[in-house]
Every structure is written in structure tokens, then in C-alpha cells.
């Protein structure tokens, strides 16, 4: 296995493109190194992105934030501007593993590892995050929900890597939140998760919403029916019940060592309801 730490994104792309064997991008490495250690993956080339200028930066852009592909979640959570704008996204990132893991793990890696239970992804999806992908054919921007395809599988082409994630400016009266369920209080993979963004008008009526659920399908799901359940309402109990039902109905989970189908379907609805209440409070500026 070779280890390379290029200092330009072009060099990274050409290394990834030229490798005939298995090439993997290393930013935080908290999934990759475990997979290698357990013998689940034997890459021929590892491309470390942390030496590429910009990959470790969080910068303001058009009223929103561009987060470099190698920014660890601990750093994201220390960024006062970002956490004030998108507390739900930051909280999701803050749930990835331990304090130690957060010192390395990146949202980009969480996304590109394509695990259905990735904690930082549902809320990032809900707030409309867009990934900038660099590749042999230049750069392209893609809504992040289109990147994971199935466990371990992404829509990235050979030679491509995610350079940064763009979180657009937050509309007025908008709040976000993410909740997940785990059997302990920390250190577990989500059994179910829900990220949600709610926008209100001046009268407190929901005008826009986006709901994404995790760990209940082969990838993070955007649930339009759930958003529709909120839009046009004051996000009252009836709307929240409809939201919960829509999420439970949309979930297509499996039974495994972490939870059962019935449990996941039910709890994802509970989480959606609870997350919506938090997002609502945030939208109201409470």
C-alpha cells in the first residue's frame, strides 16, 4: 500500500485517477482505518487530503459556510458562526463517536463512507447542503443526498473526491435539529435518526420544511410526505403526529444487532416529532 499526501486538489485527483488498484481518500480516517485493521478493505493507495490548502478551512460564502473536506467535526463545533447558524448540523457532527473520534472524523468522510446511520448527514441534507466534487473532468456541485447510494457505495466516479461542503445561507425564521436513538448515551451507531429544517412565516406558519431520516434504509432518506405534513401548519400536535406517521411509513429498515424493523419504524417517528419541536423553537428564535 502507498500513502500519498498531495498538496493540491489536482494532484489528489490525478493520484486517484491513475491508481489501477483500490484507491481511498483519507481525511479523518475513522472509518477507513478501522476497515483496514479488520481486514475488510485492503487499499493499494491512500490519498491524505489534509495537506491540501483549503481542505481544513471553514469560510463564509454568500452568507453561508463552505466547510473543507478535511475539517474534523470537533473544529466545526468550535466554530461560533457555523454552530449559531446550523446548530442541528453541528449537533449531528458532534455525535460521531467519541471526543477522540471527533478530533479526526469529518462530515465529508461521514457522507462518503455511505453508512446509512451517518449522524452528520440527515441534518446536513435537511438544510440543503451541497457537495463540491473535484474530479478528472473538473468540478461539479451535487446535493449531498445524491452521494450515498447504498452501504459503502457512493455516486462518486473514479478519481473524484469531495473537496468541500457548502451550507447555504439560512433563510429567516428557520430552525434545524437532529436527534438519533442509541441504546447508550454515547459511542453507538444510530439505530434511527432524523434531521429536520423548518421555516416559518411571521405568523408562525410553516412555509418550508425538509426532513431526512437515517439508519432506517440503505441510505439517508428525504421524506417529502413528512415535510408536507408540516408545511401550512403551525407545527401543532396534529401536524407532528402526521410527521411522525410519515417518517415511520417511509422507513424501510432491517432487523439487525442494533434494532428491529418495528422498533426502528416506531422510534424514527418519535425522533422526528421531538426534533421538529426543537427545530420549531429554533425557528422562533427561542
Amino acid at each position, binding site marked *: 500500500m502507498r500513502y500519498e499526501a498531495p498538496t493540491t486538489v489536482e494532484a489528489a485527483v490525478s493520484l486517484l485517477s491513475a491508481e489501477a488498484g483500490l484507491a481511498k481518500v483519507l481525511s479523518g480516517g475513522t472509518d477507513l482505518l478501522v476497515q483496514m*485493521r479488520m481486514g475488510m478493505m485492503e487499499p493499494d493507495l491512500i490519498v491524505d487530503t489534509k495537506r491540501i490548502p483549503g481542505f481544513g478551512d471553514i469560510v463564509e460564502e454568500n452568507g453561508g459556510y463552505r466547510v473543507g473536506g478535511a475539517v474534523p467535526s470537533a473544529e466545526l463545533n468550535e466554530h461560533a458562526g457555523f454552530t449559531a447558524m446550523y446548530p442541528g448540523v453541528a449537533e449531528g457532527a458532534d455525535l460521531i463517536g*467519541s*471526543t477522540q473520534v471527533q478530533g479526526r472524523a469529518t462530515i465529508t468522510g461521514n457522507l462518503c463512507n455511505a453508512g446509512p446511520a451517518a449522524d452528520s448527514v440527515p441534518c446536513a441534507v435537511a438544510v440543503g447542503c451541497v457537495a463540491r466534487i473535484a474530479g478528472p473532468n473538473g468540478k461539479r456541485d451535487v446535493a449531498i443526498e445524491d452521494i450515498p447510494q447504498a452501504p459503502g457505495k457512493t455516486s462518486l466516479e473514479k478519481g473524484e473526491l469531495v473537496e468541500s461542503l457548502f451550507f447555504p445561507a439560512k433563510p429567516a425564521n428557520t430552525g434545524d435539529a437532529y436527534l438519533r436513538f442509541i441504546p447508550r448515551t454515547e459511542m453507538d451507531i444510530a439505530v434511527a435518526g432524523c434531521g429536520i429544517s423548518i421555516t416559518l412565516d411571521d405568523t408562525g406558519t410553516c412555509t418550508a420544511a425538509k426532513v431526512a431520516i437515517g439508519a432506517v434504509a440503505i441510505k439517508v432518506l428525504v421524506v417529502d410526505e413528512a415535510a408536507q405534513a408540516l408545511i401550512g401548519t403551525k407545527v401543532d400536535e396534529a401536524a407532528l403526529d402526521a410527521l411522525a406517521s410519515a417518517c415511520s411509513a417511509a422507513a424501510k429498515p432491517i432487523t439487525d444487532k442494533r434494532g428491529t424493523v418495528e422498533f426502528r419504524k416506531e422510534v424514527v417517528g418519535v425522533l422526528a416529532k421531538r426534533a421538529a419541536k426543537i427545530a420549531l423553537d429554533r425557528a422562533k428564535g427561542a
Partner: protein
Amino acid sequence: MGIHVSTKINGDDVEFVCDAEETLLDVLRDRLNLTGAKEGCATGDCGACSVTIDGRLTCSCLTLGAEVEGREIGTVEGVAKGNELHPIQQKILDNAALQCGVCTPGIVVAAKALLEKKPDPSEEEIRYWMAGNLCRCTGYDKIIRAIQDAAAEMRG
């Protein structure tokens, strides 16, 4: 085939050669004889291998040796200043906050990083910060008290 790496460990310049697959933990333990960091799981779930890289707490088992070129590493061996124990080390002893002691190096490194970031953490903040450091002997009670005591002493 080896990768040559120049780095700083506990303030001292260190050079080593490692294979691409080797983790920082492998390098510390097997090449540099710094065996304070332990391999409890090799998957980032136990925290016994905790170190700091450029001041940030992380698991050395989740870092490649090759990645630390030019970085500054802090390990448990560098926490005491000579024979003078760091308050967290002393308070762990005073509180009997260890039984077997295998998780203790990771606890020391993680708690020190917490107190540098947050001088007056609540019990809940301590518990969540330390959630990645498994201890099977103590039930954590005395560890949490030791960190609270160390925090109080360091605040003066």
C-alpha cells in the same frame, strides 16, 4: 518502502520510518517504545490509545504514522514534568480512581485535554467528554471525582 517521518513527541524532535499501513499507535509502541498508549480495541472505541495531535485529542489507533509528519504529538509519557505529576495524575492517585490501570493513560491524556479546553466542566460535561474512554473496573465514579478535583486545583 518505508516512509520517513519527522515529528515532535512530547516536545522532542523524533524521526522514524514506518510502513504505510502502520498506525501511530503501532509506531509509538513498537518503534519508539512509548508503550503508555495501549491497544484496547484498535477501532477507536476504547480510548486507551489517546494522544493529542497538534493539541487535539484523538485515538492514535485511528491515525496513520505517516500522517504525523511535521505535527506535534502529546502522549501520556509527556504529561508529568519530570518527577512532578500533573494535577490530574495526582488526583487520580488521591481518589483511588484506578484499579487495574490499563485505561489510566488514556484517561490522563483525555482529562488533561478537557481541562485545557474547559477549566470548570460540569459533571455531565466530564462524563460526555470521557465517554470514549472505557473503564471496566471503577464504574467511573472515582475517575469523575478525580477530574473534578484536578479542575478545582488547576483553577486555583
